[in-house]
Every structure is written in C-alpha cells, then in structure tokens.
C-alpha cells in the first residue's frame, strides 16, 4: 500500500520543475504572453525531457507512463504558468488515438515532438453563442470556439453528438482566428468548418468520455500547481512585507488567510493524485473522480487566487509581481472543459442520482 508519489514520479517532478525554474521563469512567460514569440524553445525543452510521449506506449515511441505521472507534470506546468500545448498534444490526443487504435503514425509523431494537437471540445460539453459542429460522415460543418492551441498541426474535434475527429491544420474549408482571452499563457481561437475534411477517430461515447476525463484531471492538476504557487508566494511575501513595524504574516488576519488557503488546497493534492491514478487503474471510479476533481479544484482555485491576491495587498493587483498570470490561469481552467456547476450535474448523473 502506497498512497503517494513514487520515487520515479518525484524525480520526474523535480526534473520538470528544474527545467521550468531555470529556463521558463516569469520573464520568459511574459514574452509569450505579450505575443513576442510562440514559445518554441519552451516546447523544445519539454520535448527533450520526453514530455510529449509521456503516456504514449513505448511501442509507439513514447515513455509509457501513466496518467498520474502526467498529472504530476501538469501540476508543474501550472505551478510555473508554463505556456505549452500540453492538454491537447500530450494528453487528450494520445488518449483518443490509443483508445481508438487510430493513427499510430500521429502517435509516433507526437511522441517524437514533431506534431502538436489542439482541442475543440467546448461544443460537445455545452455550445455557447450558437456555435456547434456536425459531421456528415466525411466533412465537418459549423464552428468551434475557444479551441485550445488552435494553430497546432492537428485539432482533435468533438462534435455536438460527441464523435471524435481529427482535422489537419491545412485542411480545406478551415478558417481560423485568434480569440483573445484574459489567460495569455495559452493561445485559443475560433475554428470555422465549411465542409472541412476530417478523419473520424471514434464514435464510441466511452472513448470520448475517457478523453474528456483525462483532460479534466490534467486541468485540475494544473490548477493545483498554480494555486500552490500562489500560496507559496503569499507566505513568502507575508514573511518579508512589513506594516505597522511587523511582518504582515504575524497578524492573525493574514496568517489565517494563509492557513485557510493551505487547508483548502492540501486535500486537493490527494484528490488529484487519486483522480490521475483512477484514470488508469480504477476505471469504475474514474469518471466520478474526474468530475469532482475538476469541479472542486475550480472552486478551491478560485478562492485561493482571490485570497493570495489579497495577501499581497496593492502589489497583488499590479502587474509588477505578475501574480495575475496565476490568477487568470486558474480562472481559465475553471471554465474550459466544463464549468463547475455543469460538471457537478454530470457527477450526479454518473451516480444515477438524477436522470
């Protein structure tokens, strides 16, 4: 019995964290956020660490690790607000391809760091602004909003009726435009499909759900990391910032704000670990755990991001410390792949508590 990270997982965590601390500090993130570059070197570094092939079987050129390992990496990326096409390329697309047994070639290309894949799932979860996507057996019609990494080589698209398709970036009848969001460490855009050729990956609802569950757990892990960083920054700030001749952390109000953040977040760590583990090892609990993990981390992340900003006082509100990069990443994670209220209804349905 061992509930915790293995030595290998701790090594993985350390090596990713070391790379990100050294090579992708906040100044580097800012450059990406201000659209001064596309973050290619960041991705290249992650490729060198073997991240793209993390959950791809060794037989397909990957590392063959599990979803808990991937959650550990996702947490690191959130901790460092790292701009990287992780959720689509490293998680959701590989899960789709592995589960469906399709496009071994693409799986290999992903593992080799040669291909990236974006994700257009919003419309299958709950289409906004009259967006929506239909597939007629060979072509896609409609539009997808807030597509993650919409400029990637491929996009994994889920239709309104939850079919999974792969669309090539240079497909005919595909229009793209950037959709600017408050979260500048990720690029999101709109895709308009006009009879766009697409390859059917799966019509199996179970496959769709596995892909979605995995994506949600990774977003929750990302929020876990981002929130942990905000707590770490808050505690460090509260120790050195002085007002009324005392470090502000010696005031009960500030101390208790820090304690409440920790008390809320700490159990989330075990929840995320279990959710990652369950994706591979406890299939009968995977869906419910994924739902609760995504929804709960969204709530805790929201509370932590507010409180941490408050602990920093006016400095927290400025761009000077860049605290808002974490704030916004947590806010964005909350909304994509299903906002908490919607996911909680799913959690009730999974348990047959509602029809």
């Amino acid at each position: 019995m061992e509930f915790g990270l293995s030595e290998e997982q701790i090594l993985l965590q350390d090596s990713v964290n070391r790379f990100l601390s050294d090579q992708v500090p906040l100044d580097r993130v800012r450059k990406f956020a201000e659209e001064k570059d596309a973050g290619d070197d960041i991705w290249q570094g992650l490729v060198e660490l073997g991240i793209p092939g993390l959950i791809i079987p060794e037989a397909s050129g990957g590392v063959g690790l599990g979803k808990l390992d991937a959650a550990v990496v996702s947490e690191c990326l959130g901790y460092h607000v790292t701009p990287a096409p992780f959720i689509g390329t490293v998680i959701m697309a590989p899960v789709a391809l592995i589960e469906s047994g399709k496009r071994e070639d693409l799986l290999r290309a992903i593992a080799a760091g040669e291909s990236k894949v974006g994700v257009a799932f919003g419309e299958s979860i709950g289409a906004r602004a009259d967006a929506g996507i239909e597939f007629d057996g060979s072509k896609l019609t409609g539009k997808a909003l807030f597509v993650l990494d919409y400029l990637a080589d491929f996009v994994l698209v889920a239709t309104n009726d939850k079919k999974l398709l792969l669309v090539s970036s240079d497909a005919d009848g595909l229009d793209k435009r950037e959709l600017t969001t408050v979260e500048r460490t990720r690029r999101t855009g709109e895709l308009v499909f006009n009879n766009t050729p697409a390859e059917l990956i799966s019509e199996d609802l179970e496959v769709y759900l596995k892909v979605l569950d995995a994506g949600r757990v990774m977003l929750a892990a990302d929020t876990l990391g981002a929130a942990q960083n905000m707590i770490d920054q808050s505690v460090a700030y509260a120790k050195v910032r002085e007002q009324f001749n005392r470090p502000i952390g010696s005031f009960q109000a500030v101390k208790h704000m820090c304690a409440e953040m920790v008390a809320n977040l700490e159990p989330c760590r075990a929840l995320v670990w279990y959710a990652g583990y369950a994706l591979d090892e406890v299939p009968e609990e995977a869906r419910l755990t994924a739902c609760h993990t995504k929804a709960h981390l969204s709530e805790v992340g929201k509370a932590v991001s507010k409180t941490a900003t408050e602990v920093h006082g006016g400095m927290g509100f400025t761009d000077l410390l860049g605290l808002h990069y974490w704030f916004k990443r947590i806010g964005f994670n909350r909304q994509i792949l299903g906002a908490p209220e919607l996911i909680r209804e799913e959690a009730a349905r999974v348990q047959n508590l509602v029809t």
Partner: protein
Amino acid sequence: MDLSYGSEYETFRTEVQTFLEKHKDTPTQGALRSENVLNWQRTLIENGYAARTIPKEYGGYGAEPNILESRIIAEEFANAQMSQGQGGQGISMLVPTLLEMGTEEQKKQFIGPTIRGEMIWCQGYSEPSAGSDLASLRTSAVLDGDEWVINGQKIWTSTAHMADWIFCLVRTEPEAPKHQGISFLLFRMDSPGIDVRPLVDMTLNANFNEVFFTDVRVPKDQIVGQRGQGWLVANSILGFERGSLASPDAMLMRLNALIDLMQKETINGQSLMTYPSYRDRLMQIQARVMAMQFNDMRILSSRINKNQDTKLASMIVKLQGTELRHELEALALDVMGELGMAIGDNPYLRDKGLWQYHYMYFLGLIIGGGTNQIQKNIIGERGLGLPREPKVEINK
C-alpha cells in the same frame, strides 16, 4: 418610513427635468479641459447642478446642502443619461478639504478653477512601503529657505499623468511620532524633478501611476493646515473616498445587466436562466444587492434625520459592497463559461468585456481604499468598541 420626496421636491424635480430637456442636445463629452467639457461644467454650475453647495465667493452655486435635492439631481441626470459634469479627486476630496482646512487665499486660488474643471488634481498618499500603514510614509519634505524640497515616491496615483497639481502627504518632521510628522502640501505636477510612470495592473490597464520626486521644490506656503498636521487634514476627507467605492446604484445596474445576460445567453440553445444552480446564485445576490440598496437609503435618510443612528450601517459599506460586487461579477463569468474569458479584440466579447474587467477591478477595490482586513479592524474597534491590539514597538 416615508419614501416619497414630498411635493416641494417634485417641483424641484420638474425644474431639473426642464433643464435637461432644454440641454438634451448640448455636447457634454470630451477630453479633460476640452471646450465641450468646460462649457458644460460652467452651465452646470450656473444652474446649480454642479458645485451646488460651494459658496458663491469661491465660484460655486452657493446653495444650502440638501441631500434630497442632490439625490433628485443625480436621479434625473441618470435617467436622461446626461453627464453630471467633472469628478475626480480634486473636486471630491481636495475641495471639501480646503473648505474645511484651507486659508482664505488657498480657497480663492484653487477652488474656482478646480470645480470649473480647469485645474486637474491627483492625490499623493500611498507609498510602496506605506499601504495599510499609511502613516509610515517616507516621502520627505525638507525646508530650504522659502521652499520645501521633496524626495520620495508615491504609488496608486490615478490621473497623475493628466494632473496639473497634486495634493500630497509628506514627512516634514522625521523625529516626531509617525502620525505627527506629516504635512499636506499642494504643488504643480510640472515642477522639475517629478517623474510619472504608468502602473499597469492585473486588468492590463494603467489605471494608476507611480510618481517619483527628486529634489522637487515647492513654495513654503503651499501647505494646508500647519506643519505636522497633515494626517489630520487628510483624515478629514478619507471617509469621502471609502463609501464611493461600492455604490449600490451601480450595483443594481450591474445586477440588471446580469439578469439580461442570463436571459439572452444560451448553452446548447437553452437560456442560462433555466439552469437552477445559476438562478439560485443570482437570487442570493439579488437579495444582497437589495439589502445594500436599502441600507444606502437608510444612511442617506439619516443625514436628514439626525436621530437615526447609522454608524455601523455606514462603516460596513466598503467591506460588504466591494465583496458583493466582486461576487456579482464572478457569477457573470461563471454563467458565461469560456465567453467570460474573452477580452480585447475578441469578437465574442460581451458587454465590452466589462464583466471580466470588473471582476478583477473589484478585487482591486477589496484591497484598495483600506483593505477589507483593515475595514474589519475599524468595524471591530471603532464600531463595536472591541479593544485594539496591544501596540508593539520593534526597534530595528
């Protein structure tokens, strides 16, 4: 309880309406100090709709203070969607201070141009190391002959980049206890040695500035109150600021806009209002907005009827109002899902992105104007008479 204004006020309301009808095509918008703006401000003062209670000798309209009249003016201008003229910290904070604490010369020199919108002010209070503990400010002013020589830095100085003058707290007696060593100076923003740098905040706007002073020279008599009395002078107006950070009228407007949004926006074609969990949160917020609205009416009313005690009701406005407003905007983001994340040139932007902007801005206001932690201290100590924390003096 009597929520009617009475017939004499209805006559006044008709006068305001007539004025607004007459001027409905008058141009009122424009840059600071532009002809439209200055003309409209002059018209407003002449008719008593701006600077209403400022004495005539200082350029105002000279009416007796009357809260209901002010309220009617505000209501009718809002209904007509007409500008109520110039605001800003000069008019809202400095002018009342000068009326209270200024010399006759200062009143004559500054009040007129300020209320006419010709003279724009900024406020120099907070410093990087003096936030909640404002009285620990360090910007120094040293007397050199007939001039103060100022060195130091201010932060959170809104409109500093557009201001003609600054009213500024500086330390003039470094040896005195911290509250007694501060003076309140007025000086021109084009004085040599002033450097204004925009301060970008989490909304990615430069809503504020940092202002750096290097050997800025200021005539000795540009001080309000006595040397070392600056803390008293400043506190005579700090109350003005706090209440205004969380206006219940603005909150009600936002609530109605949110109801609108939830009725219009859809998920899979189904109105957001049909989602029970969102609706439940909306109803909770609506009840709280109502409570704050009535609380505001109660406070307003108590300024007319001095028998009503609204000390606590007033003290909690900043704390409750900013938190509630932040939550209201947060609900809007939640119901919008990904759409709520849009900013800038995003074609799916809703309501110009104001929901996202306000969500962050009101987090700023939870912190600004005395953090909500400091507010709770004030409510506990001054409102409820709970004992202060024992003072600790740490020598370093």
